[in-house]
């Protein structure tokens, strides 16, 4: 089981970020390296990849604000 965490170095301090879209649904199979979500930091979008192969568990829904390092999902 691997955590999917928002990278610490994705953006500068003091800016708000949120998950703009999950490309997979909770329970979907995902492959290591596949782009699984997009995070918007103010006006810029960043891709988040699956850290391992397995089944996706979504812990934080789209449109929710996220912090650096926050665990937003898991791959089981």
């Amino acid at each position, binding site marked *: 089981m691997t955590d999917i965490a928002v990278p610490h170095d994705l953006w500068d301090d003091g800016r708000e970020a949120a998950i*703009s879209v999950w*490309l*997979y649904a909770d329970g979907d*199979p995902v492959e290591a390296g*596949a*782009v699984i979500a997009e995070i*918007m930091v103010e006006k810029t*979008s960043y891709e988040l990849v699956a850290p391992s192969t397995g089944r996706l568990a979504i812990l934080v829904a789209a449109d929710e604000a996220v912090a650096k390092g926050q665990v937003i999902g898991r791959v089981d």
Partner: protein
Amino acid sequence: MSSPEVRTAARRLTIAKAMSEAIGQEMARDPSVLVMGEDIGKLGGVFGTTSGLLDRFGPERVRDTPISETAFIGAAVGLAAQGMRPVVELMFVDFFGVCMDAIYNLAAKQAYFSGGQVTCPMVLMTSVGGGYGDAGQHSQCLYATFGHLPGMKVVIPSTARDAKGLMLAAIRDPNPVIFMFHKALQGMGWLGTVAGSITDVPEDDYVVPIGTAAVVREGSEVTIVALGHGVHQALDAAHELEREGCTAEVVDVRTIAPLDRATIRRSVEKTGRLLVVDDDYLSYGFGAEIIASICERGIALRASPARIAYPDIPVPFTPVMEHFVLPNADKIVAGVRRMLEQNR
């Protein structure tokens, strides 16, 4: 088990990513392909259609243009006549007003006027659709406007998978292809995206043939014909209707011109009821064409055909007005229910 190229954990793309992937793959394969338009270089396209291409292929093949649509679309026709394959972006379909001559009188008539000596293998990709408050000059669809005029093919994918396949087909087609992408499906974080448009997309080379509609949901009580955003609304409506014991068949036309009338007719022959969903203006529109194509064949209908379309008014800015007039799943459900009440 599914066919070899569709693995269980295939990667998911947005329509924007699928489009830029298709263009990039084709540019790598075929040196005659080039891309141009406003903000398609450094920015990667306002709607993400060309992201990464400038870095990969350089400014000779990926060109940011001045705000000169007539000139660069005209130039694309000239490039195409010389055997190149330009992919051109018209940022919003609403802007066609400033350059329509180059499209419908020039590009679309090259093969005809030259008796086949000269072709125009050009793709004109353009954003369509509203529902996010961009008002009357940035929210239009114009499916019928383009579908009506001879000499050009017009496609509109509803999923990322179809987007890549249609783009590869479009670039390879020797004819001008208008590739419409709906803003509600594109995958831009700042626009809001219908989840169903994000799908598995094979990495390899594959084509969705232009001129083929797809039955995306099978049913026997009614045929709902739709395109773009309307396909997803129709699927939502079908899901709702199934709970009431009505199975709706949903047909995604994918190509506006040439229209796959055969697939639509087969479906309506099966169900006997026809409802068309169209977020373009009602009169003289896509819905009218579908209904005429059925009625003129004398296909037996259990109910009067219907269209859920955008009315004949400019797109209003304020959301209470805009959302009041836009098609949506509830209107589709209500429309089908009305149809079921008619018993012929």
